[in-house]
């Protein structure tokens, strides 16, 4: 039973007790220390509460209201982004911001103030939330918007589930003409090229992101594929691919090791012969390539894996990313998927939102005990020197000292925390001196 409440990275791999909150007129548990949870697609321990229970919103998944003309949808917090897309996309509406998985719930997307490949133009998810309701552990319900309870609005967006149980969310959708995306994929040779391409593409492309070969060394550090895209206009509909692949069992050990990584990274880098390739694809494989493989997190074996996602300030961008990639390559601890993107300067609405101007890099690492943790220590130091931050949604490691530096509004945030709510992440970063 407990297993189904474990976070996506399956590290820390501990049992977690939980129960389902399925009806919005229901009450929260009495006299318990709890944490709201969505679909547990966060990697580390921010959606876990090992000393208490999690209250899962996964089955709290009813739509409430849909204004098809205005493109405004109100639904319960456990509705997954995939369910919203299935409903609204045929009517020419789309998620204004989407993370790389459509299996996140709308409540989880709000509580982590998630970002997507369009951050440089659209800002974070929270920028498009018009209002929501939270329920506090004393049973009080509060509707929050930029007008009403504006302080709780700002605290709950990116608030890591700590300010109350999000019951429903109302979101402003964005118009699209059809389900295709026009993608241009550019193979580039160095980190400086990435920054040039990002600058050059920002105005004309709604979506930009790069995949980086994180085992490249020397002058090739940062080489990869830069993908930039826009929703297509007036085109035939590409058919929607079915979810076909699955990792049906738990392999006894991680299938990801330095050998498979090296092969993957160089194959992936060289998969495209030409420097530029153009294609029109259905939105699903473009936004959610990993969702096509069910339970892909299992390939990392029973020890699980960690993701490291940081942002570094624009002043230090290139040098800091170079330093981080260099250290990873030197430690020979590369990642399957290293993703690099330049955030824009649309302000994030949440007190604790992660996105801020600068370059953000995300990499997956199989958990290999101390080796992994010591590498993260080194990376943290670089991030700290570069006035950056680590993303709690992916974290199971950052120190309390760093957290408080990365998130200067933490003291202001504390007054909004519900006294009955806590998380493994929160206890970890608050306990440390």
């Amino acid at each position, binding site marked *: *039973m407990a297993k189904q409440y474990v976070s996506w990275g399956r590290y820390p791999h501990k049992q977690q007790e939980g129960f*389902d909150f399925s*009806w919005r007129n229901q009450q929260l548990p009495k006299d318990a220390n709890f944490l709201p949870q969505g679909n547990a697609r966060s990697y580390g321990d921010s959606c876990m509460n090992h000393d208490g229970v999690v209250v899962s919103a996964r089955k709290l998944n009813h739509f*409430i209201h849909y204004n098809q003309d205005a493109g405004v949808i109100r639904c319960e917090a456990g509705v997954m982004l995939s369910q919203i897309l299935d409903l609204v996309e045929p009517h020419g509406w789309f998620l204004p911001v989407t993370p790389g998985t459509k299996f996140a719930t709308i409540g989880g997307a709000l509580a982590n103030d998630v970002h997507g490949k369009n951050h440089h133009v659209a800002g974070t998810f929270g920028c498009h939330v018009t209002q929501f309701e939270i329920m506090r552990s004393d049973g009080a319900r509060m509707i929050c918007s930029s007008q009403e309870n504006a302080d709780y609005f700002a605290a709950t967006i990116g608030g890591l589930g700590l300010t109350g149980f999000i019951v429903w969310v109302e979101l402003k959708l964005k118009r699209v003409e059809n389900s295709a995306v026009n993608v241009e994929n550019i193979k580039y040779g160095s980190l400086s090229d990435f920054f040039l391409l990002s600058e050059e593409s920002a105005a004309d492309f709604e979506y930009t992101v790069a995949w980086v070969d994180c085992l490249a060394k020397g002058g090739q550090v940062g080489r990869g594929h830069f993908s930039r895209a826009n929703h297509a206009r007036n085109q035939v509909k590409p058919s929607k691919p079915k979810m076909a692949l699955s990792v049906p069992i738990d392999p006894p050990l991680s299938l990801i090791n330095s050998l498979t990584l090296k092969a993957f990274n160089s194959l992936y880098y060289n998969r495209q012969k030409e420097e530029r390739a153009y294609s029109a694809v259905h939105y699903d494989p473009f936004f959610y390539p990993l969702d096509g493989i069910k339970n892909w997190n299992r390939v990392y074996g029973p020890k699980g894996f960690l993701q490291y996602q940081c942002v570094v300030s624009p002043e230090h961008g290139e040098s800091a990313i170079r330093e981080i990639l260099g250290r990873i390559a030197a430690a020979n601890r590369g990642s399957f998927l290293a993703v690099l993107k330049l955030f824009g300067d649309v302000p994030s609405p949440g007190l604790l939102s992660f996105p801020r101007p600068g370059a953000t890099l995300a990499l997956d690492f199989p958990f290999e005990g101390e080796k992994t943790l010591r590498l993260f220590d080194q990376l943290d130091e670089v991030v700290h020197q570069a006035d950056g931050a680590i993303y709690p949604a992916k974290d199971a490691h950052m120190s309390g000292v760093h957290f408080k530096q990365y998130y200067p509004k933490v003291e202001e945030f504390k007054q909004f925390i519900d006294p009955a709510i806590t998380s493994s992440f929160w206890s970890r970063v608050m306990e440390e001196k």
Partner: protein
Amino acid sequence: MKNWVILGATSAIAEEVMRLWASRGYKLFLVARNQDKMDIIKEDLSVRGAMQVETFVMDANEITKHISLLEEADKRLGHVDGVFVAHGTLPDQKACEKSYEAAYQEIHTNALSVISLLTEVANRFESRGHGDIAVISSVAGDRGRQSNYVYGAAKALLSTYLQGLRNRLVKSNVHVLTIKPGFVDTPMTADFDKGALWASTEQVATGIVNAVDKKRNEAYLPGFWWAIMFIIKHVPEFIFKKLSM
């Protein structure tokens, strides 16, 4: 377009079935014990495209209301094309071993209440010459086991009843579907450890909607349960009685 009456409309499996029907623009008449839950479901189904959603509060064991329920559905929907029965309870087997009253109550909820309703539905559909009847039974009805034979017996009663009904109504163009789910992750089974054999409500609902569309007689869901139950049904009784199942 179709008009369906759904009993046990607040069941997790029924909800997913109704969502699929709603997206096709069907008209739905929900019957369940809890008005608040039905209000929530009604909004959801309306957003998903249902042409009309009506609610009716009733405990399935109140058999005196069954006729008025069907009359009300006819009145509010215009006419009824199909009846889908999803309500049920998973008994406390130990309690049923101690008390006939408890066992009777479970059999009433899981089988007799359905038979009461279907008696009326069958006669109406038969005289009209069309209609769909879809009922959730269970693989548990295929063979009695010590761990839940009261539930199993109720479902077996239901399955056999439906078989006969199908045989009777085929000439009247009335379709009867027996749905036999295996393990489904729902509130009914919240306390069980979930392993590889468990299915989601979405999976099972898709199977139900397909089986109704294709006018199947019996649907094991997911389909591999047919093979599992084939084996279980064929284990000789002198061995079976010694197994701890």
